[in-house]
Structures are given as C-alpha cells and as structure tokens.
C-alpha cells in the first residue's frame, strides 16, 4: 500500500466515489447476472444510469418512492436477485429506515444499499439534503454492515467485496470527489481497518473524506514534533476492535474524525469499543449535534470544524489528557 497525503509534494489525484460506483456496478453486471439495480429518480446523480444503459431490463426506476423501492428490493432478493439500491443518503437511510429494518435487515436479505451524497459536503442543497445521521441509523440495525470508503480506489475494492458477501450492506458515498489515498495494491476486507500512517503519540481514527484530512493533519503535526498514527476505518460495522484497541494501547490518545454527527457514528463506535476494552482519552471530530446549512463544501467543512486544523486542535487537547 502506498499512501499519499493531501498537501504532499506529489500531485494529488481526485476521484468521485459515486463515479467509481457507477462504473464498477455496470462492470459487475456482466459477471453477476443476478444483479438488479433500483433507483429513486436519481440515476444520474447516483451514477446508476451507467448500469441502466447497459442492462435496461435489470434496472428499475422506482420514482420518488423510497419506501416502495426498499420493499421491492427485498422481494427481488427473495427470488435470488442481488439488488443494489441507490439514492441520496438521507433518502436511502432516513426515509425508508423502518422498511430497511423490517423487510431487509430482520430477515437478513442480500440487499446492498449504496447511497451517494452522504455528509455535509453535499453543499449548496443545504440541511434537507445533507445526511449527517446515516451511519448511526444503519449501524443500530441488526445484521447491517456499514461501510464508508475513503477514496475511489477503496470504493472499487468495497464493491468487489460486498458483491460476494451474503447479507444486507449499507455503503455511504459522497457527492464531491475525494483525494486518492490508496493505490491499486490496497487490500480491502470487510470489518478490517487499515493503518494508513504510522505514529506513536496519538491515533486519529477516520472514515470517508476525513481520512485524507487526517493525513494532512498528521503531516502538519509532524512538523511540530507530534507523531500521529492515522487509521482508516471504512467498515464502521462490524468495526475492527482489535486494531482500535491495539492502537489505543500504543499511543494512549485517540481522535476520531467523520463527516457525520458525533452522535451515533464512527466516534460513538470507537468510544463503545474503547470504553469497554481500553479506556483512552478521546476527542470526536464531527458535526456537533447541529443541522446543516447551504454553502460550498469548503465553506461547510470550515464552518462545522472538519478541516485538518480542527483535527490538530483536537489532537493537542487530547494529548494534554495523556
């Protein structure tokens, strides 16, 4: 694995996780004839139109009716199809939450819910469309696997993994393009986290876009003589307990970073692990129990304190508690 930090001398490449999703899904359609795709009037935005063009008979636009879409996917799964269901995160995890619980997760059906437009970086559409709660909403449902890829390369690897996994999975992708962190040699396994930067003073556990921001923060911290370890937790459930516990024992201080509410998401998941197995001073970077608002992604990351500088502040705070 090769890791490039944002801001390093190397030119940073950007890839859209949803763009990769659309391409990979259309490609997987050849290998897996049982794949069917359902969408709620957002096939362009979710990039599922690529699958639609290639396999029109295996694509179902369900209109603006997410609850029906989830139920239909459940029914398709019972007759041996492998449904991929896509819309914006808030309409994928929020609006049909109870349908997901009842019709997909309780019976353990093999349905993949791949949302796009997760997090605050949805931007100008504002609070109604910025999903800051989906990780928590999905994590609490029994049998549900929850994955947030950190870049386009990881998104591709995630797709290969979940298509082979039997059971319900929720994947959160984003509207904006992410800096590429991984190279093709990166090996993704469901429920396995990855150390993407070594360090001994503090551990930053991040997911999604915040992995890249955490790497930038770690580079800047190094200039101040602080060696920050950065861990990518893409599978938030089931979480890689061993990696998190070992890291906390090595560094003795943990900061979590996510583009999600600090309630219920990655920060909560890490706190659950550490408070039971290895109590460790912690800080959580995320949306602090607030609604979103309109703005550019860059403005919003600053307003909600999700930039490398905010991670650095949290690291310095938690280090005082060591």
């Amino acid at each position, binding site marked *: 694995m090769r890791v490039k930090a944002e801001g390093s001398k190397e030119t940073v490449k950007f890839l859209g996780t949803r763009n990769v999703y659309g391409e990979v899904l259309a490609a997987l359609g050849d290998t897996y004839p049982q794949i*069917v795709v359902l969408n709620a009037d957002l096939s362009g935005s979710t990039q599922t139109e690529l699958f639609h063009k290639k396999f029109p*008979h*295996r694509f*179902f636009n*369900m*209109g603006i*009716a997410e*609850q*029906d*879409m*989830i*139920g*239909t*996917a*459940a*029914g*398709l*799964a*019972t*007759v*041996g*199809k492998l*449904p991929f269901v896509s819309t914006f995160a808030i309409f994928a995890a929020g609006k049909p939450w*109870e*349908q997901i619980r*009842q*019709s997909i997760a*309780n*019976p*353990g059906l093999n349905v993949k819910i791949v949302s796009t437009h997760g997090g605050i970086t949805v931007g100008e559409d504002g609070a109604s469309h910025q999903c800051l709660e989906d990780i928590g909403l999905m994590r609490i449902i029994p049998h549900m696997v929850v994955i947030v890829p950190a870049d386009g390369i990881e998104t591709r690897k995630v797709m290969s993994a979940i298509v082979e996994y039997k059971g319900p999975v929720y994947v959160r992708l984003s509207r904006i393009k992410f800096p590429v962190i991984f190279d093709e040699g990166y090996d993704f396994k469901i429920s396995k986290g990855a150390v993407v930067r070594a360090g001994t003073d503090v551990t930053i556990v991040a997911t999604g876009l915040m992995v890249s921001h955490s790497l930038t923060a770690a580079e800047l911290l190094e200039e101040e003589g602080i060696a920050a370890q950065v861990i990518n937790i893409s599978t938030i459930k089931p979480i890689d307990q061993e990696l998190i516990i070992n890291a906390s024992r090595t560094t003795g201080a943990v900061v979590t970073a996510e583009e999600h509410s600090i309630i219920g998401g990655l920060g909560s998941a890490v706190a659950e692990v550490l408070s039971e197995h290895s109590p460790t001073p912690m800080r959580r970077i995320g949306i602090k129990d607030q609604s979103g608002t309109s703005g550019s992604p860059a403005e919003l990351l600053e307003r909600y304190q999700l930039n490398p500088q905010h991670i650095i502040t949290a690291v310095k705070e938690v280090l005082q508690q060591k």
Partner: protein
Amino acid sequence: MISKTPLEELPAIARQIRIDILTMLTHAGSGHTGGSLSAVEILTVLYFVKMRHDPSNPQWPERDRFVLSKGHAAPALYTVLARCGYFNPEELMSLRKMGSILQGHPDMNTTPGVEISTGSLGQGLSIANGMALGLKLDKSSSRVYVLLGDGEVQEGQVWEAAMSAAHYKIDNLCALLDFNGLQIDGPVREIMNIEPLPDKWSAFGWDVCQVNGHDPIAILDALHRAEKVKGKPSLIICETVKGKGISFFENKVEYHGVSPTDKELEEALKELCG
C-alpha cells in the same frame, strides 16, 4: 406439488382451521383473532386449491409465492401451512412462545412456508412486486399473491406500490384485500376512510373485482379470472366479516387484537362443531 383439494371439502377444512386458530390463540393468551378469522376462506382457497406449491419442498423454485402483508393474521397463515403439511399441526400450540417456530408475526427464517417476514403494515405489496418482477426476469410462470388488510391501505407505501405494479405491468401478481371494515380503534370508515376502493385501485391502473370473501367458489373464480388479466396487476376486494364464524366475535372491533378466553373458546368450539 400439492394436489388440488375438491371444492366440497373446503368448508370442512375452513372449519378445522377456525378451530385451530381459536385454540392456538387461546393457548397463546394473545394475538389477533378477528382478522385471522376473516381471512380463513381466502387462505384456504389459495393454499388448498389455487397455488402451486409443495409443502415437502418449501423452496421449490417453481412455486407460487404468497405474502401475508397483514402479518397480524399470522395464526390463519400458520394453521393453513400446518394443515397443508409444512409442519406438524402440534406446533400450532407453541404460537408466540419463546423459541417457537411460530413468531407473533411471520418470520421467513423460522417458519417453513413463510416467504417473507411481515408484521409492520404497508410493506407486503412492495415485496410482492419485487418477487413478481424477479420471477418475470427469470421467465418463470410462478405467480405472486399478497393479502392486504383494509386498515393497512391507509399506509402510503401501499399506494407507492400500487403505482409501481401498474407502471411495470406486473400481471403475474394478484393482490387480495381482506375488507372486513374494522381496525383496532374502530370502523375503518370512521378512523380514516379508504373508500371508494374499486375506484381508487382502478384509477391506479389495476384490474379490480369484488367478491364475497367467505365464498370459496367466488374467490376461486376471481383468482382464475385474475390470472387471465394481462398487462396490469389484479386486485380482488374480498368482502369479509371480522371474527367470521363465531357469532359473538363477528363484527366486534374489540376482538381485533385479543385472544379468546377459555370460556369463549369453549362456546366458540360448540358453535363450530355443533
């Protein structure tokens, strides 16, 4: 595949199913009596005559599918499945008990013959649509049946699914609506009126017919007719009586979600067997 039961035997089977339902509910001490009794003839005609299925091979790929969208009528479904041979009728007395294969509402992973878990209202028609679309993709001749409650169609998702079924011309699907007129809090028309049902479903693009939901021949005729409808989904509105078959349960809203007492069971069995 199960052999078709002669029509003249259906009344006796329906009586046995009512005896089972009342006995298991009394034994369980809780459960939904009224809406189970109203659905007896519908389920009996489907499972004993109309549907292609094989109790000795519940996963037979060529079977017709049934979705109990009104999942609270689970006692009726369980009894029919047991009497068809999916499991030993002795299991019926374990209804709602810890560790039972018969959960309070249908669970596809614990009960042989249950196609999909239900119980949260409004979801079954979408699921049935998905099954039917999947079967069509596979060019299967299997049909999908789904039983809706009348109060259930107050759920918005039912109308989303009604749109989808017509939009995708899902003609291998037949929905039946157990129109007993009562829901937990009172008469459906007083709680939240759903009528006129035929006009609404027709306007949504469905083929609609209305039958006496306690007349096996009328139900069967409607099912045969529905099978001939091409290019659109079919709905059979079954006019039923909540608590059907037991004089003191019939049309009583109080018996929606209450099981019989020992004394009520005794009286009810006298009526059924007398």
